[in-house]
């Protein structure tokens, strides 16, 4: 049953990507990527490795995690329930089969899509800094999330309000529980990693909105939908969602600082950048590349500025964004 579900998710995500990648990323960036992927891989490899280690650690500790949590026995479920009561029931007034269909689709498929797409999109940028920042933010989200999961026992609202929520995901799609329990245990709802990772991605999408305006237009509502879906489907408390957003802001900030500190570009100075730029220029002589836009230079000041005008140069650059 799990294999079936995984296949189903994979197929849908691939279909979404096939449709979305060309539209959103653009042929030129993809063509450039074909030439530069080795360099970009090399630059992103340390961070990507980190994400992999965190994911593997999650994989192997998952079975043991609940036992340790119960040994610590810091059960915050009653506290969350005492504080917010049945607040998330508020979403039930909008409940209808299409809305439920939408949110359950978003919770499972939308979430996987929002996680996967920016990795591809940022890999398609000649500046790897957004990619590296995104990956470190993923890793940080997971690490801090896992730590809190270990520390805190919290059942989600559906586990304490068996009747109040008509739209519990696992009641009308019990099979989804196989999927989610592969990643998570039912005592791990604080914070909402669905929310924190989606919010993280939304913040990144905002910062790269000049490179990927379509992606920003998609990611922002999608991330919001995912956050709402966790409450609508009875999986998370509002507190978990707030904690998720806080975690997202914190990790984006931290990723900013950390990547700045240890990036190869800064450690090894200009030579690496120039070297990369030279390769790109050599590559450029044989195939037309999609040069980074000025906006990208603004946001991530270390990109090579030696290239020709970007496609969005007809719009005046507004300088550094906040």
């Amino acid at each position, binding site marked *: 049953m799990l294999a079936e579900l995984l296949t189903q998710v994979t197929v849908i995500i691939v279909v979404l990507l096939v449709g979305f990648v060309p539209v959103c990323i653009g042929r030129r960036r993809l063509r450039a990527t074909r030439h530069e992927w080795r360099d970009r891989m090399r630059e992103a490899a340390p961070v990507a490795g980190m994400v992999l280690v965190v994911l593997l650690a999650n994989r192997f500790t998952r079975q043991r995690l609940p036992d340790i949590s119960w040994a610590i*026995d810091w059960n915050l479920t*009653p506290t969350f329930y005492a504080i917010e009561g049945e607040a998330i029931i508020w979403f039930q007034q909008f409940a209808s089969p299409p809305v439920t269909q939408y949110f359950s689709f978003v919770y499972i498929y939308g979430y996987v899509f929002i996680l996967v797409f920016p990795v591809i999109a940022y890999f398609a940028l000649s500046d790897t800094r957004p990619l590296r920042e995104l990956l470190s933010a993923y890793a940080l989200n997971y690490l801090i999330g896992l730590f809190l999961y270990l520390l805190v026992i919290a059942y989600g609202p559906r586990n*304490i*309000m068996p009747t109040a929520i008509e739209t519990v995901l*696992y009641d009308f799609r019990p*099979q989804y*529980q*196989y999927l989610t329990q592969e990643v998570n245990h*039912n005592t791990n709802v604080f914070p909402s990693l669905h929310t924190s990772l989606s919010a993280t991605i939304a913040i990144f999408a905002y910062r790269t909105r000049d490179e990927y305006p379509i992606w920003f237009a998609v990611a922002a509502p999608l991330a919001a939908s995912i956050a709402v879906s966790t409450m609508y489907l009875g999986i998370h408390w509002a507190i978990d969602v707030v904690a998720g957003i806080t975690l997202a802001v914190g990790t984006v900030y931290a990723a900013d600082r950390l990547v700045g500190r240890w990036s190869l570009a800064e450690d090894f100075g200009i030579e690496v950048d120039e070297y990369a730029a030279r390769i790109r220029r050599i590559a450029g002589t044989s195939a037309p590349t999609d040069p980074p836009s000025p906006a990208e230079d603004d946001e991530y000041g270390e990109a090579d500025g030696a290239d020709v005008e970007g496609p969005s140069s007809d719009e005046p650059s507004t300088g550094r964004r906040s």
Partner: protein
Amino acid sequence: MDRIQRLITGAASDQLSITILTLPTDNDRQAIKIARQLEENLKAVGINVRIEPRADAELLQTVLLEHDFDCYISRHPGGYDPDFLYETFHSKFAPEAGWQNPYGFVDTKLDELLERQRSTTGSERKEAIGEALDRLAQTHPIVPICVPDERRLVRTDRFDGWDDHHLGTRLGYLGLEPDENDFEDEVVLNAVITDSSPSRNINPLAAAYRYRGPFIDLLYDSVATRDDDELRPWLAESWEWDESVATITLRSNCLFHDGEPVTADDVKFTYDLLDDTSLGDRDGQSPAPRYRGVGDAVESVTAVDDRTVRMRFGTSDEVGELAFTVPILPKHIWKTAVKDRLENGAEPIQGTWDLVTTEEIPPIGSGPFALTEQEPRSHLRFERFDDHFTRRGYVDLPEPRVDEIAFHVEPNSSAAVDQLEAGNADVTGSILGSETVGDVPDGLELVESESWTFYHIGFNVRNSPFSNLHFRRNVARLIDRESLVADVFNEQASPTVTPVTGEWIPDDLEWDGSAPYAPFFRDETNSGDTGELDIEQAKREFERHGFQYDEDGEYIVRS
């Protein structure tokens, strides 16, 4: 400060507040619903409530071993013989950790009745039990709520014989007939369970992980086995009673899964171990946190020769025979396990020391199946033990006919049913939640078994406020069994005011629409509306018994 706190948590700082432990929706949808109903009524009469969901084993751990609770709502395994009341409520067990008297209940009159039912038989015993149940119904250490129907779904295309024996016992899994055409070589029975406990710990003495289910009885043999209403010889070929002494003859040439022979010495050792898990190492005894009542009935055990055991009981033979159902443990493994732990400096603290909580003692028994694989929270695999005595031609007992049984842990009842529908499993090993049994899906069959389990509220009478009888009674009066059975159980349960079932219930405690000693505070003025709580009457009753309300009369002030 008060106002802020009330705003945030809905309770004033001087308000009486209690915590209800129960299972989360995933584990037991009915228990949490009962808890929510009680919460609503408690709040209505001005008592603040915290509901704390805990997973199966963790709930039992807190209640049975740590005694760290106000009250809890869950299912009790009950028992086919009412003697389980002795273990559950006798005051001599109040200080111990385990299934024995977790409530800390002390009542000398009840003690006397519980002892009397152990030494009498027939109508005398029945009378003593009736009186004990009456006493329980008046003193409220627990509030029995209802006996849920015990239902399981099975697939009939690969195996037959589901109705032959109770599926909550070992016999339910023996004698099942595989349809040979459906299997190429290995015959594997796939069962789905919703309680992960056995996959996490299969120690027969670990109280928090042992609730119900056939797991221990598949792995370990016992002297006798329960088959419907009778006790049949199992590891024993036969036994004979002489006054209060039973002489047991064991079957010949039985082996443990590691090849060691099962002897009278192992049987004696098992009962000695139940009596004192430190095997006499310390002055004080450290009785096991399970089988306490039946273990207590045994006065002495002697191994007469390899195959003969003599057991002396301090009870009637009817109660004594209940001790024949405990799992017989291999001395060569458990004695070493005890010695190793004591040598390493472990303190044999009753009920909670390593021997009776660890998952590390090799799960070697002599039962019809041996454990081959155990993956926490995922699955357990058992493989047929070919040397088991039931496989001998001349033994007229159901024998294991499948090569392997796999128990897969599912997140909840509906997921378990899905696995059956998808053809991935043959039986729902755990009892189904009543939310999942509506129309029986095509190709599946519903098996209904006799049920001894009951939903109840258990009180920790060691601490205020549940140390107060009047408080317990008034809380009991907030329970509307009929509306719970209708709304929470879809009528798939019977209301009850006693922890026993069937013919043991005395006439005056038979459910007749109202609990005799603690009737629901029903709002009679609104007769069309059943399930309506008469808040004013309830508040007056709390007040009458010394519970003070705040000046606005809204909530009970903590004393």
